[in-house]
């Protein structure tokens, strides 16, 4: 291959770094002001923003592991972009601190309120799991696991570039198999801790899975957006072929469908079960104005991306994926908002059916996802510039970039 594989990140991406920093900086100031004015509203918005951006880092790690096991040229092209995202894991660990503060200060979760726990049989029963010390221990475990995986995936991949040692490809595969299992477990439990416990009387075993699929979808879209932006420049120019973009578009389509499948499954299980501790969760999210958000999600998180992504003329050129990816990412934030926000003004436990949530949105709900996105993206581009954009010595390299199918 005669391409300049070690060309630096093209300016089309690096020039985004400064605007990202400005958005992040202004948002940070606004966020601090908002936190001082109304700490609780700040926490509610912050949880949405954190869940989304943390999910992108984790989703990127999942896609990396899946690709090490499955192979495929699309993944070799995406790899450095995804790796840069996983190197933001430390940032997410730091950014968790406000949520921890909110938990300790009894501002975010009802199970931190001793009086309520003592008065409620169900909460009392769940106290051995839902208490601040154990919550903190689990939190530390999650981040240790995630930071370790991010460190190893990045380290071995870079060493493979430099040394061409065949052992490293095997190491990466051996890490990815059990790694995916451990990721699934930690993601499930972190989702139970951080999101499902907002309404601790309610439970759904499908809920963490919807979140994992949503993370995969958002991470895939984010990675594809950046690769499509860079596709006209070295080192990608001439290297990316139509079939790579088609694969990426197909994966976006697959995750859109999987999101729909898991979301519908949860609805069906709740709908057919018809139990008093489960149905209020949906009642809160389809009445009082939230129904419009639900319809928006059905049409714009499923129907529209599904129809658009079916078409080859969208996938093959690559560039249209930038727009559809951005659109899906925006819908993913709405999805998380729809999950999280109605938890706060709804009745809990036995009161759930009598006090349903009404649609409400705080200015921080819009500012904080953008602010965290600015900071996240700034760090992401900073990391992206550090390494060559195309990895070397991958065992599937030759067949991934051979022209034609034979």
């Amino acid at each position, binding site marked *: 291959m005669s391409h300049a594989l070690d060309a630096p990140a093209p300016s089309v991406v690096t020039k985004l770094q400064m605007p990202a920093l400005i958005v992040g900086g202004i948002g940070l100031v606004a966020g601090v002001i908002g936190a001082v004015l109304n700490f609780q509203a700040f926490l509610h918005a912050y949880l949405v923003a954190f869940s989304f951006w943390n999910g992108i880092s984790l989703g990127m790690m999942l896609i990396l592991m899946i690709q090490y096991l499955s192979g495929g040229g699309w993944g070799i092209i995406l790899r450095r972009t995804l790796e840069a995202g996983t190197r933001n894991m430390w940032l997410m660990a730091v950014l968790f601190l406000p949520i921890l503060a909110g938990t300790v200060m009894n501002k975010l979760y009802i199970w931190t309120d001793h009086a309520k726990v003592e008065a409620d049989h169900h909460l009392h029963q769940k106290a051995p799991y839902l208490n601040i010390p154990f919550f903190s221990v689990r939190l530390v475990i999650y981040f240790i696991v995630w930071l370790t995986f991010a460190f190893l995936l990045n380290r071995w991949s870079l060493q493979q570039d430099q040394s061409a040692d065949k052992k490293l490809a095997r190491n990466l595969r051996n890490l990815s198999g059990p790694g995916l299992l451990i990721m699934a477990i930690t993601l499930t439990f972190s989702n139970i801790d951080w999101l499902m416990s907002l309404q601790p009387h309610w439970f759904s075993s499908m809920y963490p899975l919807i979140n994992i699929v949503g993370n995969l979808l958002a991470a895939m879209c984010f990675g594809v957006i950046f690769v499509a932006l860079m596709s006209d420049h070295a080192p990608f120019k001439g290297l990316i072929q139509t*079939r790579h973009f088609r694969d990426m578009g197909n994966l976006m389509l697959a995750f859109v469908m999987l999101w729909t499948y898991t979301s*519908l499954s949860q609805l*069906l299980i709740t*709908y*057919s079960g*018809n139990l008093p501790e489960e149905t209020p969760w949906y009642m809160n999210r389809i009445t009082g104005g939230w129904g419009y958000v639900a319809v928006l999600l059905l049409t714009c998180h499923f129907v529209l991306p599904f129809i658009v992504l079916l078409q080859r003329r969208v996938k093959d050129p690559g560039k249209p994926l930038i727009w559809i990816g951005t659109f899906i990412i925006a819908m993913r934030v709405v999805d998380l908002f729809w999950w999280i926000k109605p938890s706060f003004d709804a009745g809990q436990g036995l009161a759930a059916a009598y006090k349903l949530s009404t649609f409400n949105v705080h200015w921080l709900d819009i500012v904080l996802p953008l602010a965290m996105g600015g900071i996240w993206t700034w760090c992401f581009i900073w990391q992206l510039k550090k390494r060559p954009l195309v990895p070397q010595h991958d065992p599937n390299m030759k067949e991934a970039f051979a022209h*034609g199918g*034979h």
Partner: protein
Amino acid sequence: MKPKARSLHYGVLAEFDTPQQLVDAARATHDAGFRKYDAYTPFPIEELADAMHDHQNPIAKIVLLAGFTGACIGFGMQTFANLVHYPMNIAGRPNFAWPMFIPVTFECIVAFAAFTGVLSMLALNGLPTPYHPLFNCPNFSQATRNKFFLCIEATDPKFELAETRKFLEQLNPREISDVEN
């Protein structure tokens, strides 16, 4: 009744050793203005469809239509059964409990689309075909093993046996044979 007059020849068949030669030959054949020709290979070659400008197959549209039909039938069947034919109170849910209709609707979409897809693929390929003139060429059995063939058919308006032979000879095939009907 007189049998329908058939031309003596089905076409001219050229044999190639490598897929690249075949792709180049197909491109040249298309550029020379031939339209009724086909390529035969032991395995799928993605570039071949590009070279032949052969992207017009209606399968996608047929499958979409079949899936839509399946959705209407699946959803309609359940709506009819639950609202008109045999309304029943199930766990206090409304008779028109549409979320519960989705799985069966989905299965109907898949069943209709899959069966229609396979069957229309066979129909559009003209299968089953017990006899094909190409089987008259002894070498043609190699098409399932390691040789690559291009056949310009006699039904092409530009087809002239001698001219077409001459044209194919320029493409450096290993062998050229006339295919008899």
